[in-house]
């Protein structure tokens, strides 16, 4: 997701700062055709690999071929196999290009290339879709001597409509979706669902109450992700709850954002929350405002805001990067109560250390269910826990099964683990 944001800023930065480096790299890189041809014709000393066959590579977009062959009789003397390709079986020697290497002892190689041209010149190792590509293989030893050629094999690459290697993901998606729907139905049907308290979220109401007593505003930061990051969307949910409370208590709310689309979504969230609280008249669109799309000026401005507006309670919910601690420390200087939640692994330690309550990773997503206590929202949580049990079972059973399948062939292993444990103790 973050790729979209990076496209803007980092592309520009890269172009400016590192363009000379790229250029140097580009000029130093000759085209593959001349880079991969050995200097002098080497001696042909070894017996060739045999029975070469080629097939369309499955599960791809139609630019890959899989080769299989039988080892050369001199495999032990070789270093590796060279895979060469051409557009026709009868192509002249100069039209063959080296497509890749496979180590001694390997019987298969898959070649994939999607770039039809390189710097204006046709790419000799490009695999076109729908027309046949021809391959041959030879062995090479470490002194540069080579084997004879294998026979030529050919295949036509085609695009596939289903990626068989992703069946596990498909099953996981269907499983989770099925479990989610099942538990939602069960919950609607009156099944009692439990949800464990999440400390940071139980503190929300109290924190809003405090701001009201002190007559100071509440600050809600949605982070520096994009509007479509799941963590940001989870942030809107908490924001919605906070906004409804501030509407009831008539406390003022400040939501500085760093992305225009995020601003639009946050405005929708807050205005609806005020409507639900029955105070649409109190809603001011200016309370959700854009500052800067770049991370650090945004932080500088929010830090200034905390100091000048003396915010009583700060929420940080969403995607955070290096700014986590910058915000949290400035907030603590201004004496605010702070509640944070993020899915960013590297920033959780700083939030844990510097804010009063932290929703650790997954807790941020569970917050919405806890806040509403609605069965429809709690059902999916149950499904999520179910998948977690499955994962833990896979972990433990998988390790045990793998270990036993190995120890079966190595009976001394059990004795060794015992002695190792004794040794360690």
């Amino acid at each position, binding site marked *: 997701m973050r790729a979209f944001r990076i496209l803007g800023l980092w592309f*520009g930065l890269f172009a400016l700062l590192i363009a000379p480096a790229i250029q140097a790299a580009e000029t130093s890189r000759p085209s593959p055709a001349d880079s991969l041809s050995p200097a002098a014709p080497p001696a042909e000393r070894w017996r060739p690999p045999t029975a070469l066959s080629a097939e369309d590579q499955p599960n791809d977009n139609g630019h890959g071929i899989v080769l299989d062959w039988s080892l050369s009789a001199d495999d032990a003397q070789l270093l590796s196999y060279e895979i060469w390709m051409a557009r026709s079986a009868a192509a002249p020697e100069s039209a063959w290009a080296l497509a890749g290497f496979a180590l001694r002892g390997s019987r298969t190689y898959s070649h994939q290339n999607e770039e039809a041209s390189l710097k204006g010149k046709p790419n000799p190792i490009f695999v076109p879709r729908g027309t046949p590509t021809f391959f041959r293989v030879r062995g090479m030893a470490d002194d540069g001597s080579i084997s004879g050629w294998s026979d030529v094999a050919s295949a036509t690459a085609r695009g596939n409509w289903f990626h068989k290697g992703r069946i596990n*993901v498909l099953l996981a998606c269907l499983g989770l979706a099925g479990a989610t729907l099942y538990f939602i139905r069960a919950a609607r049907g009156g099944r009692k669902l439990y949800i464990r308290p999440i400390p940071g979220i139980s503190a929300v109401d109290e924190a809003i109450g405090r701001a009201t007593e002190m007559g100071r505003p509440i600050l809600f930061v949605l982070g520096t992700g994009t509007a479509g990051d799941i963590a940001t969307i989870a942030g809107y949910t908490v924001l919605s709850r906070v906004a409804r409370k501030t509407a009831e208590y008539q406390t003022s709310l400040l939501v500085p954002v760093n992305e225009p689309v995020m601003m639009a979504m946050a*405005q929708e969230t807050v205005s609806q929350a005020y409507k639900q609280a029955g105070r649409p008249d109190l809603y001011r669109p200016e309370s959700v405002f854009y500052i800067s*799309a770049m991370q650090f*000026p945004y932080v500088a401005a929010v830090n*200034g805001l905390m100091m000048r507006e003396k915010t009583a309670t700060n929420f940080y919910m969403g995607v955070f990067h290096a700014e986590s601690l910058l915000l949290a420390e400035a907030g603590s200087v201004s004496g605010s109560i702070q509640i944070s939640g993020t899915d960013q692994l590297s920033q959780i330690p700083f939030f844990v250390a510097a804010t009063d309550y932290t929703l650790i990773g997954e807790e941020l997503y569970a917050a919405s269910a806890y806040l509403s206590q609605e069965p429809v929202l709690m059902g999916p949580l149950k499904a999520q*826990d179910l998948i977690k049990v499955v994962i833990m079972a*896979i972990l433990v059973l998988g390790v045990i099964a793998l*270990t036993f399948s190995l120890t079966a062939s190595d009976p001394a292993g059990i004795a060794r683990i015992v002695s190792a444990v004794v040794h360690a103790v």
Partner: protein
Amino acid sequence: MEPTWGALAWQGLAAIVTLGIFSFLAGDNPFYKIIERTWVGVTTGYWLMLLYHTSFHDKVWVNIVVQHKWWYILPTFLGLLMWLRLSRKLAWISRYALAFYIGISTGIYIPLAFKNFVFLQLEGAVRPISFDAAGINFVIALVGLTCSLSYFFFSKPHTGILGGMSKAGILTLMIGFGAGFGLTVMGRVALLVQRVIFLRDYSVNLFGKIF
């Protein structure tokens, strides 16, 4: 090499900015505030021009006007709908654009997260136990992982066995957080040292030029 007055002036701007931002450590003050507000303005202008010259040009102008990929008119139209937010009455129309934005983002995320975060992590974690010190560490890590996962159970009260496991889990998590915190210091200090050295070099250059 002797720096020119022009270069010194530009570096002087950089030095003033550096000091202005640092001054926030002493508390909010007008110096910081003026730097902060200028910075926000400059960034916004910079960002606008960056997107205009790169993204807008490449994704909208080139696609529609140069390459005649007329189907790019669709997202462009949706993007323009966002401008209706400036009107209180018509703001809701922009929800159509937001809907696509959210739908596409989440749709991409679901299978990718399963593949990259769940299956790849599982692949890394499921290994046979070897019968040596590394094997013992592996078992400890496995127990730590299982317990930490159980801390994130939401639909069961954390009592009994689950309670014990989740306690061990949060302990493991805390060790991880402590290590994360401790590891980061070195990189941040290196950045600070760079700033200090910049200021020192600048003052050396400046006074060298004056005297």
